[in-house]
């Protein structure tokens, strides 16, 4: 019921709109600014003279002849071998998502259908594991991995990331499977299916929305991880996030900072696309635990 009072623009409403507008600018502007600046030279991006240079690209025109330059991207991707890091990230992220969804679905299903006391304790332990900062575990990995000579390899990191991912995946899929009626798989079992067959033929076809949402968050965790990948990967196996950090250490030289800027923009682009396509799933996943209590 929209009364006149609701549609009129009041002081409170104006403040509230202004706040939203301000927030949207604060949220979006840094990304726009960095994206725009990544096509300039350093003298423009970090302009000593006048920040308008970053918009117009005065120095970029002077140095390269055009207002936009791909020099930063060329430097990062080709000269610094960022493509290798991107490839590594691709391998790590894909494997982590596939493996953790596979074993997480089985585990989450079992936890949702079991009322035993130990199932509850597993969930509690998972909650504690989930809250721990990942860096606290890293020193536990490093010494044994060095001793066994498996430090620095991609498969080691993949398994570690899968394990770190499990507590979250388990909780999310567990609450998702709780929402699939029990009667569904139980009637299949009355018809003579084993538990696994019931899972395979009855549950798998209807579980995809929950699995996709969980997969998105597995992806984000693996893609955004810095602690594990920075400490457990050797230089040639580095993924993009630690690579950007090592860029920062070596880019005090004039001009090279643009490599890092270009790398940062390249690392943000996949996330941008992800949000573009999966906004609804991400929002529902974020609030899944909250709204239901």
């Amino acid at each position: 019921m929209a009364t006149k009072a609701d549609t009129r623009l009041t002081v409170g409403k104006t403040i509230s709109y202004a706040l939203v507008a301000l927030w949207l600018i604060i949220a979006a502007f840094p990304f726009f600014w960095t994206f725009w600046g990544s096509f300039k030279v350093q003298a423009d991006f970090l302009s000593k003279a006048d920040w308008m240079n970053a918009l117009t690209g005065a120095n970029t025109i002077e140095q390269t002849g055009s207002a936009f330059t791909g020099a930063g991207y060329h430097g990062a991707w080709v000269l610094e071998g960022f493509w290798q890091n991107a490839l590594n990230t691709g391998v790590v992220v894909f494997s982590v998502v596939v493996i953790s969804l596979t074993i997480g679905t089985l585990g989450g299903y079992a936890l949702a259908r079991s009322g035993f006391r130990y199932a509850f304790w597993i969930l509690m332990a998972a909650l504690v594991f989930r809250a721990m900062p990942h860096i606290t575990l890293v020193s536990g990995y490093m010494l044994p991995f060095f001793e066994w000579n498996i430090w620095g390899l991609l498969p080691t990191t993949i398994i570690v990331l899968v394990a770190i991912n499990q507590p979250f995946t388990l909780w999310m899929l567990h609450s998702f499977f709780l929402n699939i009626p029990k009667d569904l798989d139980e009637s299949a079992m009355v018809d003579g299916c084993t538990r696994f067959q019931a899972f395979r033929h009855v549950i798998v076809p209807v579980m995809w929305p929950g699995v996709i949402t969980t997969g998105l968050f597995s992806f984000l965790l693996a893609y955004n991880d810095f602690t594990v990948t920075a400490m457990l990967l050797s230089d040639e196996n580095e993924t993009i996030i630690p690579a950007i950090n090592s860029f920062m250490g070596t880019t005090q030289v004039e001009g090279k900072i643009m490599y890092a800027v270009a790398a940062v923009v390249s690392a943000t682009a996949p996330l941008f696309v992800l949000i573009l396509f999966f906004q609804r799933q991400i929002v529902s996943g974020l609030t899944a635990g909250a709204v239901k209590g």
Partner: protein
Amino acid sequence: MKHRTFFWFILPTLSAMILFIFLPIISVFIQSLHIGHEQVLVVSESCGPFGCNETVAVDLEATEKLRQEAPLGQFNGLATYFNRSHLASVEVAEAWRTRQSFGSFFSEITNLPFYRALFFTATYTAIVTPLVIVLGLAIAVGVNNLHRLLKGPSIFVSLLPFLVTPLVGSLILFWMVDTDGILGASLQTLFDDPSLSLKASTALTWTMLIVYGVWHTLPFSFITFYAGLQTVPTDTLEAAQVDGATKWQRMMYVVVPHLIPLVSFVTLMLLMDNFRVFEPIVSFSAEAHATSLSWIIYNDLRESGNPLYGSAGATSIMTIIGVCILLMPVLIRIWRDFNRKAH
């Protein structure tokens, strides 16, 4: 579900968690009880025409051999936990004994690395968490009043700072507040102080980290509250309106009470997130002014050539204990819920 079937279903995920989460915690604990080997020293006497000299040299070969044989190092008991770079029991007691005022004791304590990190983490958490909750609620109400077509794009834009890799997000802000960046340069002009640098002073570095923290976590509270607003019962709202409640009263007495359970959920998630603040310190190179427990562990392990496993382990164990204490109220509540359901 039978015990047997349950076992086979849970086996892969459980073994992954035991092998790579539970056992590493044990390993961290054992490491924290040990300390790296001291270098093996050899004393050689060389005699010349002017008498004999004793020279002390490091026997690299023997040191290396010792490290090979016992990579863990020597057993050190709990000593690492109480040394100067951790709980610093001796220094704290000393500072307490010689204190002139509480303030001087406090500043003495916050010079010790562990307490310095703890103090920053606590300040950061205490400022970011309430700010994010209040602002998140305000923005959620604002977006909820927007036109239908504007809601989707607003949420899209808001998600960006939250989902961006923390290291990358803080780098983006870092370049903007650089003395040559747009924000840093603008602030210099605004305050008419060409030497103003956000990176040079402790207070400004902390402000910068806190601003980043709000920017990064605000979307989470906003989205959660926004989702909560969709479930506010319209009947109650209309009833309040019929009874003559103003907009503000409806907000305070209907909407906010409805969202209270969400506030506790958001607070918990934010506490856990803020407690592990780490990447922005690396990105901003802020370690001279602000450190956190996670950063101390990272720094110990980064010690080139010879990571300080014992020291990192001790900090890790104390961090884990801290997380467990923070989590205790939630665990107790879930446990009660479970028991109520079971009976």
